C-alpha cells in the first residue's frame, strides 16, 4: 500500500513536472531589469509600465511565433553591483531576452554578462556611448546617445548667447559623460565655460557650490546627473537668489524633481526624447495606457514598449528564437515601433534618434521650446 502511494506520488509529480515543462516551452521569457526601488525608481515605473503593456498587447494579438511572452521582472536599484547579481540570476533563470537596464552604470557591467552568455539585451534608457562601443553583438538600445543629447543641449545654450556657462556633473558615468559632451560643444562654439566641476551623488548641501556659481556670475548652469541632486541645487539656488537658467538631461526630467524643488523647478530646461505619446499614430496605444490607468508620457515608457516590440518583431523576422539570429535580423531589418522607424547600425545604436529641448514647469508639465 505504502509503495503504491509512493508510486502514485512519483507519477503525479512527474506528470506535473512534464506539464510544467510543456507549458514553459510554449512561452518566451522577457527579462525586465530596472530599478523597482531606490532613488530613481520613478524611471523604473516607466520602464515596467511600458514593457507590461507591450507584452499584454503582443499576447492579445497572438504572441510571437504562436508563443506567449512572459515578463520576468528584476530590481537592480540602479546599482552596478546589484545589476551584476541580477544579470547572473537572469542567466540562471534561462531568460534569453532582456529589456534593461536603465542606468548606464548598471547596463555596462550587466551587458558584459549578457554578451558572454548569449542573451540579447535592449536598453530603453541608457545613453552612455560606452554601452555599445565595445563591438558586442547582442547589445542594442531604443534611445539616443549622450553624444547626441549633449550637443543638442550645448547648441541650445549657445544659441541663447550667454556670457558665461557653468557645467556641473555628479561624477557618475552618465552625468559626467553628458556634461563633458555639453562642455565640448560649448567650447567649439566659443562660449566661455567658467566652471566644470563634479558634486558627490547623494550629497545634500550645495550651498558652497551655489555661492561659487553666484561669484562666477554665470547665465546658464548645465547639470549632468539625476533629479535628486539637481532638485536640491535648484531649491537651494533659489533661496540664495542665484539668477541663472538651469538645464539638464533626461535623467532630471520627471515629476520627482517637483517634489524636491517645488516652485524652483519652474523654467528648468530639459533635453528629452520627443513626446512619442503625442504622435498621431500612437493615439490608439495611448488610449490603452490610459484605460489601464498608466501614464504613457514618461520619457522611457514608449522606448521600453518599443524594446519589447523589437524583440518580438526580431524573433518573427529571424524565424528563430536564437538570440544571435534575432540580433542579425534586428541589424538587417527596418522595424515600425511607437518611437518611429527603427534601423540599427553595426554597434547596436539606432541610426537616428532625436532629442528635444523642453521647458519644465513646477506642476510637472513640460512644453517644447524649439
Amino acid at each position, binding site marked *: 500500500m505504502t509503495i503504491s502511494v509512493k508510486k502514485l506520488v512519483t507519477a503525479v509529480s512527474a506528470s506535473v513536472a512534464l506539464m510544467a515543462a510543456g507549458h514553459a516551452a510554449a512561452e518566451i521569457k522577457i527579462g525586465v531589469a530596472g530599478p523597482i526601488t531606490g532613488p530613481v*525608481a520613478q524611471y523604473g515605473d516607466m520602464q515596467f509600465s511600458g514593457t507590461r503593456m507591450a507584452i499584454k498587447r503582443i499576447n492579445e494579438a497572438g504572441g510571437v511565433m504562436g508563443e506567449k511572452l512572459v515578463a520576468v521582472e528584476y530590481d537592480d536599484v540602479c546599482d552596478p553591483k546589484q545589476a551584476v547579481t541580477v544579470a547572473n540570476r537572469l542567466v540562471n533563470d534561462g531568460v534569453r531576452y532582456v529589456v534593461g537596464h536603465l542606468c548606464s552604470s548598471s547596463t555596462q557591467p550587466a551587458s558584459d554578462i549578457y554578451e558572454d552568455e548569449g542573451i540579447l539585451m535592449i536598453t530603453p534608457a541608457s545613453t552612455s556611448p560606452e554601452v555599445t562601443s565595445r563591438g558586442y553583438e547582442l547589445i542594442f538600445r531604443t534611445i539616443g546617445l549622450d553624444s547626441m543629447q549633449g550637443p543638442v543641449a550645448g547648441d541650445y545654450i549657445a544659441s541663447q548667447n550667454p556670457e558665461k556657462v557653468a557645467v556641473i556633473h555628479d*561624477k557618475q558615468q552618465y552625468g559626467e559623460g553628458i556634461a563633458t559632451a555639453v562642455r565640448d560643444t560649448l567650447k567649439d562654439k566659443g562660449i566661455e565655460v567658467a566652471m566644470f566641476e563634479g558634486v558627490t551623488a547623494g550629497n*545634500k*548641501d550645495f550651498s*558652497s557650490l551655489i*555661492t561659487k556659481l*553666484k561669484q562666477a556670475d554665470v547665465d546658464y548652469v548645465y547639470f549632468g546627473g539625476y533629479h535628486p541632486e539637481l532638485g536640491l541645487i535648484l531649491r537651494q539656488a533659489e533661496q540664495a537668489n542665484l539668477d541663472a537658467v538651469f538645464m539638464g538631461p533626461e535623467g532630471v526630467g520627471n515629476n520627482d524633481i517637483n517634489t524636491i524643488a517645488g516652485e524652483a523647478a519652474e523654467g528648468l530646461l530639459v533635453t528629452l526624447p520627443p513626446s512619442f505619446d503625442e504622435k498621431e499614430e500612437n493615439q490608439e496605444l495611448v488610449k490603452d495606457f490610459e484605460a489601464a490607468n498608466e501614464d504613457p508620457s514618461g520619457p522611457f515608457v514608449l522606448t521600453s514598449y518599443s524594446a519589447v516590440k523589437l524583440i518580438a518583431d526580431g524573433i518573427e523576422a529571424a524565424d528563430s528564437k536564437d538570440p544571435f539570429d534575432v540580433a542579425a535580423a534586428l541589424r538587417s531589418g527596418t522595424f515600425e515601433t511607437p518611437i518611429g522607424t527603427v534601423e540599427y547600425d553595426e554597434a547596436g545604436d539606432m541610426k537616428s534618434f532625436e532629442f528635444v529641448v523642453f521647458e519644465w514647469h513646477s506642476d510637472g508639465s513640460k512644453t517644447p521650446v524649439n
Partner: protein
Amino acid sequence: MQDLLYFSQQLINGLTIGSAYALIAIGYTMVYGIIGMINFAHGEIYMIGAYTALIAITGLTALGAAWLPLILIVALVCAMIVSSSMGWAVERVAYRPVRGRHRLIPLISAIGMSIFLQNYVHLAQGSRNIGFPDLIEGGFQFGSDDAFQMSLSYMQITIFITTLICMTALSLFISRSRTGRACRAVSQDLGMASLLGIDTNRIISATFIIGAALAAVAGLLLGMYYGSIDPLFGFIAGLKAFTAAVLGGIGSIPGAMLGGLILGVSESMTSGYLSGEYKDVVSFGLLILILLFKPTGLLGKPEVEKI
C-alpha cells in the same frame, strides 16, 4: 570687498552645516565617553528624526495649522520624542545585551542596527527623495545689486540660534544637574560609579536619549535647510558627524562642537576655493593629519585604554 563677501558667504555656509554636524556629533561623543563604543546607528536616529518631523509638519498642515512657530515646535517635539525612544530602544535591544563583551561585538551590533533602521524606513516610507515644505523663507542680503551679494537666510539664522540654545542647555545640564554629574562620574569610571550607588544603566539610557534628541533637532533643521530627505541620508551625515567627533576628540563634548564647526568650514572652503570634488579629500586628510599628531583629537584628554 567682493572677495571678502565671498569669503564670508562660504564661512556662513560652512558654519551652518558645521553646527548641524556638531549636534549629531554630540551623540557619538557622549556614548563613546560613557561606554567606549561607537554607536553607528546614530546617523539613522537622525534620519528618523527628520522623517518624524516631516510627517508631523505634513499632518499639522493638513489639519489646517498655519501658525509657523506652533508647527515647528510640535514637529520638533514629535521628532525628539520618537528619536529618543528609538535611541533608548536601540540601546536596550542591541547594545545592553552585549555590553562588556569584546569591543568588536557591540560595534557589529551597531552596524546591524544601522542597516536594519535604514531598511525599515526604506520599506515604511519608500526609497524616493521626499521634499520638505519651505517653512522659513527669505533672509538678509549684503552687497550691491549688480555684483556678488552675500545672503544670510532666516533658515541659517534659525540653525545657528537653535544649535546655540541646544549646546548651552546641554553644557548646563552636564555641569549643573544631578544626572549630568552622574554622567560625568560614569564616564570617568563606570565600575566605581556603580559602586557609589549610581544607577549606571539609567545613566547610559539617558545618554542615548540625549544624543538622540539632539540628532532629531539636527534632522528637522537640516531637512528644512536642504529641502529633501531620503532613507540613506543619515548614513553620510552620520559619517561626517563621527569624523567631527573624532576630530574634536571623541568623548569630549566641547570637542564635538569644535570638530563639527571645523569640518563644516573646511568643507565649504575647499569647495569654495578649490573644487567640490576635493571636499571630502580635504576633510578626511585633515582628520588623518590631526590623528597623526594628536591621536586623541583636538580637545580629547589622553587617557588610559578602557577595556
